[in-house]
Each structure stands twice: as C-alpha cells, then as structure tokens.
C-alpha cells in the first residue's frame, strides 16, 4: 500500500517537475532578470548595478517616451478599429457560407497567419515602395485618365509623380492591419457562429431592417466575441516590432523599436528593461480587461 502511494507520488513528480522547472528556469527567471534590471543603473560599459532606483521609470515618463507610448497605443488602436471594420463582414460571411465554403474561407484567412511575418512584411514593401505595385497601378490609372481627357479634348494630366507610401505611418498601419486581420476575424467568427440565427430571422420578420438587426441584435449578442477580437488584435499590435521597423519612417517608431534600440544600439539595458516591463503591464492590463468583460454571460443581450 505504501509503495503504491509512493509510486503515485513519483508519477506526479515525474509529470510536474519537467514543465514547472522549465518554465521557472527558462521563462520566469529571464523575465525576473529584466524586471530586476529595470531598477538598475549602468556602471561602466557592461556592468549594471541593481540599486533599486526608479530613475528608469521616471525617464520613461519624459514627454519623448510618453509620446511614443501614446503613439503606439494610437497606432495599435487604429489598426484594431480597421481590422474590426474590415473583418466583421468577412466573419459574418463565413458564418453564413455553406459548409464547404466555410472551411475554405477559414483556411484562406488562416494561411497568411501561418506565413512568416517577415515575409509578409517584405511582400508589402514591394507593394508600397515608390517603384512598387501600388504606385504602378495608380500610374496606369493616371495615364488612362490622362488619355481619356485628351480624347474629350481636355489638357492631359501631366506626368505622374509616385507617392511616397513606404517608410511612413501610413505604411505601418497598412502593415499592421495586413498582419493582424486573422486575429480579428477568427474570434469574431467564433462569436457569430454561436449566435442563434432564429433571433436574426425574428428581428427581420418583425420589420427591422438589415442594418438595424445588425446593430441591435447581432452586435450586442456577439459583443463578448467582439471585445475578445479587439483585445487579441490590440495586444500583439501594441508590441509590434518588425512592421514599424521595416515599413516605418524615422517618426513611426513604436515602443518595441525603442526597446530594441536600448538593448542593441544605445546599450542602456536598465532603461530598455523598464520600457519592456511597462509594455508588459499595458499588455496584462488589456488581457485583464478581456477577462473582466468575458465574465458576463454571452447571451446577456444588453452588453456591458
């Protein structure tokens, strides 16, 4: 009997120890070091003295860095809003598609999601740069328009000047929407799919129009899913590094780029650590918000 409990305890330890030890040694410990560093200061070139100072956090409150934080939040928020506007009809369409089409559309939404982030961003560079496809298309339309105008006896439009689309805030937002759209569509789809379709039919039967039905039946019922989608999109967009790095200009740095610079170029690790933890707190705040909102019953109807 004693050997059996011993054996069970051994089985428990064999199951519990590897993942717990791993997560402590190779995940929590590295994060804890960053946290400790955020209260330290540079002493010499490579030495860092963890003195418990709050100087790094105070420095992060300077207008320059507060501005970058505000900008990151704004860009991530705009990205999320655009994803919601673009993604909602897509999610709705997937819900109402036939079974065969639904599988294909979900696959089509997921496939770019699995394609390397770097490659997708690179693909956008080729589209947006001055001699890129976007400018070519616009030039073609410009020339057609010009030709049409000479046809009806007007002055031609003149030469087309390519737009500077790349290396701008515009490119960053386009890139972030491009990358994060699946994050929005999938939770929206999950929420809308659970919706009782007879409620929509009832609303239409009772004389409400499609837009009114959408606004007063579909949106309130799918609200937990919508909030989920908003936060699932917002969180990675807020911490985005690659998109602003490759598509942005000098003024489109987001918080992750500033962190990278502290570690790789400015060599101010304590300050970078403080910024990292501020970003983490913002992320956790957003996730806590989601947990708070999803506590309510999905069928509540009246929203939050």
């Amino acid at each position: 009997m004693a050997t059996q409990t011993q054996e069970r305890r051994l089985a428990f330890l064999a199951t519990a120890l590897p993942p717990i030890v791993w997560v402590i040694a190779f995940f929590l410990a590295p994060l804890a070091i960053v946290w400790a560093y955020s209260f330290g200061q540079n002493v010499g070139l490579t030495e860092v003295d963890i003195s418990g100072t709050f100087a790094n956090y105070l420095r992060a409150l300077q207008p320059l860095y507060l501005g970058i934080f505000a900008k990151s939040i704004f860009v991530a928020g705009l990205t999320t809003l655009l994803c919601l506007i673009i993604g909602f009809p897509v999610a709705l369409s997937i819900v109402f598609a036939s079974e065969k089409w639904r599988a294909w559309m979900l696959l089509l939404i997921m496939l770019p999601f699995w394609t390397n982030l770097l490659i997708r961003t690179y693909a956008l560079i080729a589209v947006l740069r001055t001699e890129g496809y976007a400018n070519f298309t616009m030039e073609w339309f410009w020339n057609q328009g010009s030709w049409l105008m000479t046809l009806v006896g007007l002055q031609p439009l003149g030469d087309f000047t390519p737009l500077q689309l790349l290396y701008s805030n515009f490119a960053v937002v386009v890139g972030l929407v491009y990358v994060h759209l699946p994050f929005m569509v999938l939770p929206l789809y999950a929420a809308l799919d659970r919706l009782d379709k007879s409620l929509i039919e009832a609303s239409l039967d009772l004389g409400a129009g499609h837009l009114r039905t959408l606004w007063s039946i579909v949106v309130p019922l799918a609200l937990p899913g919508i909030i989920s989608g908003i936060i699932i999109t917002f969180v990675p967009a807020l911490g985005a590094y690659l998109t602003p790095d490759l598509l942005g200009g000098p003024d489109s740095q987001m918080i992750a780029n500033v962190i990278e610079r502290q570690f790789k170029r400015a060599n101010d690790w304590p300050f970078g650590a403080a910024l990292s933890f501020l970003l983490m707190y913002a992320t956790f705040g957003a996730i806590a918000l989601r947990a708070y909102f999803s506590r309510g019953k999905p069928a509540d109807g009246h929203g939050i």
Partner: protein
Amino acid sequence: MALKRAPLEYNRLWQMKLWLFGVFFFLYAPLVALVAFSFNDSKRNTVWRGFTFNYYVKLFNDQDLLIAFANSLTIALFATLISLVIGALAAVLLWRYRFIGRTVVEGTFMLPLVVPEICMGVAMLLFFTRVLPWPNNLFWPFSLGSIIIAHVSFCFPFVALVVGARLTSFNKEQEEAARDLGANDWQAFRDVLLPHIHPALIAGGLLAFTLSLDDFVITFFTSGPDTVTFPVKVYSMLRFSVTPEVNAASTMLILVTIVLMALMMVMQGRAQKKG
C-alpha cells in the same frame, strides 16, 4: 426562389462579394506577387521580363543561406522534440492532478502566449549574456542551444493546448482498467494514454515546428554571428535591398510552411475522427 434572396443569405449580396474579393485580394496579392517575381528574369523587382530559375540556383549556391536554413531546421527539430515532452507533461499535469497552486501553474504555463515577443526577446538576451552565457566555441549543433531553449519556452504552451484539448475526450476508465489488469503508472501511460494523445502530439509537434521555423523577433535577440537562422538571414538580406533572391528565399519558406500546415490539418482531421 432563385431570384429572391432568403433573409440570411448575406453572401449573395454583391456588396458582400465585392468586400470579400477586396479583403482576399489585399491578403493574397502581395504574397502572389512575391512568389511570382522570384521567377522574374530581372534584377529589378518591378517589371516582368521572363521566367527563370536563376535565383533559386543562386540560392542553392549561397553557402551562408544554406547554413542558416540548416540551422533553422535543426533548431526547429530540437525545439519541437523538447516542446513535445514539456508540453505534453504540462497538459497531463493540469488534466490529471488537483494540487495546491494549480491555477497559478496553469496561468504561468500560458503566460508565454501573451507576453509580447519583444519582451521575451530581451529577456532571453539578458538571460543568455548575463546569467547563463552560452559558450560560443561549442561545436554545432550545441552552439544553437540557447536559441533552442528560447524557442521551447514559447512553443511548449501551444503543444500543451493541443494535447489538453485532446485529453478531454479521454475515457479515464480505460486507464483504470489497465491498472486493474496489473499495469503500473508508466505502463498505463505508455500503452493507454500515449496512443490516445498521439494525433495531438503530431499536430502539436507540427505547430511547434512551424512556430520555431518562423520566429524572427525572439531569435533576433538570441542569435549570434555564428548562429544565424533563416529568418534572421532573410532579414539582413532585405534590410539592404529588395531583390529576387530574397523573393526566392521567401518562397522556399512559404512552401515549407504550407506543407507543414497541410500535414497538421490532415493530422488534426484524423484526430477528430478518432476522438
């Protein structure tokens, strides 16, 4: 009936069709162009000048790129194997046992899914320079150890999720029957539970492999000059210029990902059928 739209057939609205076309065009046109221009017989990436495999030939003669690709595959392989063990154990732990602090442990296991990549990247950078400096004179593949460890830390929660989902369909009586028939814990695990979660292990493994192969940000902070992975190499290439070589390299990686994903979906489909 064919003329009049039923109330819920939003998909037959032309506005909806146009919207979907626009969205999928937005998602796929850049990628299609990227793949197409990897076959373009021109240095400049803008006008189509005829079909060529030249850039793929060049790719296969680029020693650095091949090494980077081999590094990526090796890292992905080892990270997957370790993630499978750690992730499966984590899933079994949370599914089978009730213990003090279980919620905390569960939350901690899922933490890598939500921590921003950049924070995880700098954490790994700090860890592997200040706490556990990875010797840089180790011979291959041990030199990749730090990257493998970093990858396991963000891959294993995905394995745990996939395996955990599969475990919910497991009938615990099967295991009890095995014990009644004289199997010990290990035998019951190996002969009853393991076959049940096998499809989830394959799906989770492929997921981990894809994630590891694709990761750039975290690797960027852990890789050194001698441990360049494929995405890190592609990054340094495209920082300099937009060339068909980068397109060709990207196409190769897209191809590998699509194959892996197709495999994963077949496996998941099989798992669902069995379960």
